[in-house]
């Protein structure tokens, strides 16, 4: 896995480089926009971490030129500015994700993993959560390789929860997800599916927490 880091701050660039190298990525690092543009034009990478505020050529321009050349390499933008316009502009220009400085290292690593995986599989992959694996395309879930007996709607709920593992998923988001199967899914129905899922998953240490007034959360592996 080759990753290019484009960051002009030497301390941050060094930190990122070392962190990703520890995770077994092959990392190149450049410190200005002009150099980044040159390197990206001549070599291929699996991921680019691109700072927006760069000397010589700013990140937006580097990104625009990259996409104009037809490259589909995933790009994670980094910026010190958190204005919505910058974010929208970056995503419009073809960035795949966005992270505001300063960030938590695990957060960056998680995003990098997700982007690399997406780049490889084109978006559809198996979701894993501890011993639990969900084959999104095949629509079946396994626990330590053993198939779990889940209905289509229960799978739908589990998929959304696993995609946003560790984060809150609202009942209406779940309802939206199930809309394809059911004409109308009420909040009560969602509660029923979650209840059934819990019964099947709790014995194996996967817990779905109810967050008052907000929805559900699939607890992180470390917590569960």
């Amino acid at each position, binding site marked *: 896995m080759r990753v290019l880091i484009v960051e002009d701050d030497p*301390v*941050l660039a060094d930190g990122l480089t070392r962190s990703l190298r520890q995770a077994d990525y092959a990392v190149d690092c450049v410190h200005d926009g002009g150099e980044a543009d040159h390197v990206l034009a001549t070599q291929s990478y699996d991921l680019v971490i691109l700072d927006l505020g760069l000397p010589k050529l700013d990140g937006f321009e580097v990104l625009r030129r990259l996409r104009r050349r037809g490259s589909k390499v995933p790009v994670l933008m980094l910026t010190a*500015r958190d204005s919505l316009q910058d974010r929208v502009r970056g995503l419009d220009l073809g960035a795949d994700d966005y992270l505001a400085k300063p960030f938590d*290292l695990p957060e960056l690593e998680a995003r990098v993993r997700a982007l690399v995986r997406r780049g490889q599989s084109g978006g559809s992959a198996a979701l894993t959560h501890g011993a639990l694996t969900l084959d999104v395309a095949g629509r079946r879930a396994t626990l330590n390789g053993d198939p779990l007996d889940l209905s289509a709607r229960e799978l739908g709920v589990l998929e959304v929860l696993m995609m946003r593992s*560790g984060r*809150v998923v609202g009942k209406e988001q779940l309802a939206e997800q199930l809309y394809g199967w059911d004409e109308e899914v009420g909040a009560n129905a969602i509660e029923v599916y979650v209840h059934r899922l819990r019964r099947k998953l709790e014995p194996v240490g996967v817990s779905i927490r109810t*967050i008052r*007034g907000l929805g559900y*959360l699939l607890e992180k592996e470390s917590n569960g």
Partner: protein
Amino acid sequence: MAKSGTLRRQLLAWLAGPLIVMWSISTMVDYDIAKRFVNFAYDRALLDAALDIGRQVKVLNGRIYVDLPEVAVKMLQTRESGKVFYLVTGPKNEYITGEPDLPQTPHPESGRTNYYDDEYLGRPVRVVTLQLPVETGKDRGYVTVQVVEDRAPRAEFAGLILLRMMLPQVALVLLAGILVWYAIGRGLVPLSVLRSEIESRSHRDLSALSEEQVPQEVRPLIRAMNGLLQRLSKTLAAQQRFIADAAHQLRTPMAGIKTQTELALRQAPPDESQATLRQLNTATEQTIRLINQLLSLARAEPAAERAHTGERVDLTELARDAAADWVPRALARQIDLGLDSTQAPATMEGDAFLLREMLNNLLDNAIRYTQTGGQVTVRVAVDIQNITLTVEDNGPGIPESERERVFERFYRVLGTGVEGCGLGLAIVHEIAQRHNAEVALGPRAGGSGTVIKVTFPLTP
């Protein structure tokens, strides 16, 4: 009122001086006129008396005498305007009848009627002399009839007339004074309107004052003030920009420090250096939070250029998103964070970005200061007039004596044992003010804890 009061008094003094001088002159002229008319009328009456006497002058056997009946004499002595004295003398100045001691007329014989002032018995008197031609057998000449009356009643009467004339004038002057007082007051209304506008302004409103309803004379003052306000808001905006730029500039190096610290923390053996690195990491996180809060504050300040307070935002949705974002951090501290709101949207006009910042700061504070295992609840309620956002925790609560001060910048409640920089509630306060909202902080009903309530008025 003190300022306009002196202006009013000054103007009134300027008006009153000339008015009193003019009134005095007018009084003198009036008195003169009154005296003339009174004299004229009294003189005519006196002349009548003289003529009455003159008609009774008769010649018998070459001797001139006056046949004045008793009744006529009585009448002369009991006139309304005082007793009349008379003297009739012949052509050679010989005494015929009347008071012999009346002063001699200074007018030579001419056949004319003369009026003049004189003195008799020590009193000022008015005299009429009438000269009537007579013929005794051998001589032709004039009989002089001299009639005298006291001048005092005239003066009295003239005084009376003057008084009658003056009274309406006094009323007129007083009325003019009152009218001027009132008119000045009316004229100064725009000034006091302006004053109350400036007084009621919040310190964050640096927009120009309206010139429209202000008299021409006051406009230069308004313009000068507007100029000052403009310079002030430019300076403030520059300051805000500086803080925002500085905060932005600090983010990249802080990201570097944080990344390096986290990296080192992973590799360090569990000994002293690990503890040092953990302290370093905490300090870095605190500094980052301070930088972010300074940036929020700079954005929320009135001088900041961004102001999208006109957007339609759904506070329930914002609260749901913000609370959902904070759930992982709340769970990490085993705090039960939840939302309690109606399904109905709480739509209002506001700046979604700033409102989100407000929610973040409220939640950050609540989670930070609530003990492990505690509970934090966000509520959004809508009624006809207001949208109310409440964040309630069952933490230790804020002592009553500190409740006002926690909204001050960099103020921190002591003894909480929690790292913080004391900007969170200042930001909340600033953003609330930006939305004309009220922030109230109180204890939780039924137990320890804090309730922060932000009330947004719904503008129809």
